[in-house]
């Protein structure tokens, strides 16, 4: 068990949070994309983390299990009969992205990233202290 292990655990946390940040950026960028190559409007993406046990140290690293599309939130139906993608009733389906929600998620991701950063700082400080014993 050494401090490098705990640094690598924190690094796995940072990698996971930055993947999450990328996904949030994608969601916000596509908040108004009503057409996608697969057809239909853009659907919000959600990320699922998974704790992965590192057998040699007994510590839990974090991994991204999957990024999936969010079907639990309905698409926003906007009444716009003149739009070329409007359906028979004159509604256009908009992405189920809420920029407000994405903003909150983004805050959480960046706070978690910072927290991992300070865990690394503290491990580093401990290593420096151990090295100082040699002086």
């Amino acid at each position: 068990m050494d401090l490098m292990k705990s640094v690598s655990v924190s690094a796995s946390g940072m990698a996971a949070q930055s993947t999450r940040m990328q996904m949030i950026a994608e969601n916000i960028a596509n908040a108004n994309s009503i057409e996608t190559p697969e057809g239909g409007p853009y659907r919000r993406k959600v990320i699922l983390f998974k704790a992965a046990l590192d057998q040699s140290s007994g510590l839990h690293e974090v991994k991204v299990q999957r990024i999936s599309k969010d079907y639990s939130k309905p698409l926003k139906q906007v009444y716009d009969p003149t739009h070329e993608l409007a359906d028979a009733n004159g509604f256009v389906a908009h992405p189920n992205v809420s920029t407000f929600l994405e903003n909150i998620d983004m805050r959480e991701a960046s706070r978690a990233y910072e927290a991992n950063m300070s865990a690394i700082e503290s491990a580093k400080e401990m290593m420096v202290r151990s090295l100082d014993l040699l002086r």
Partner: protein
Amino acid sequence: MDGINLSQALRHRMDYLITRQGVVSGNVANASTPNYLARDVDFDSLLSKKMAPMKQTDAQHMPGKAQSALGGVTVDKVNIRHDGNSVKLDEEMLKLQEIQMNYRLMTQLKAKHASMQRMAVSSNNR
């Protein structure tokens, strides 16, 4: 003889602090993992494991490890959020600070102890 015990005690404590640092780092990394429960290690259980290694009752048994990597791990099953996670980032940050302070104390004690030993040895020559 006391001196030897002191440095051994310091080593145990530092080992524990390093282990705990890793466990807390794991909690921080898994702050948003669903169904992850916050863990912690306590000093007493880790120490008692180190003091009394598992006995080998048969020659064909695998030898018990005197030092288990993670001794007494406690799991927080009380403050579980709706996503099944029980990590509280502020608490973990506090723990990190505490570990760092304690580690600093241990290294300073060790340095002081070494300088006292040096003094004891060198005063012979004067």
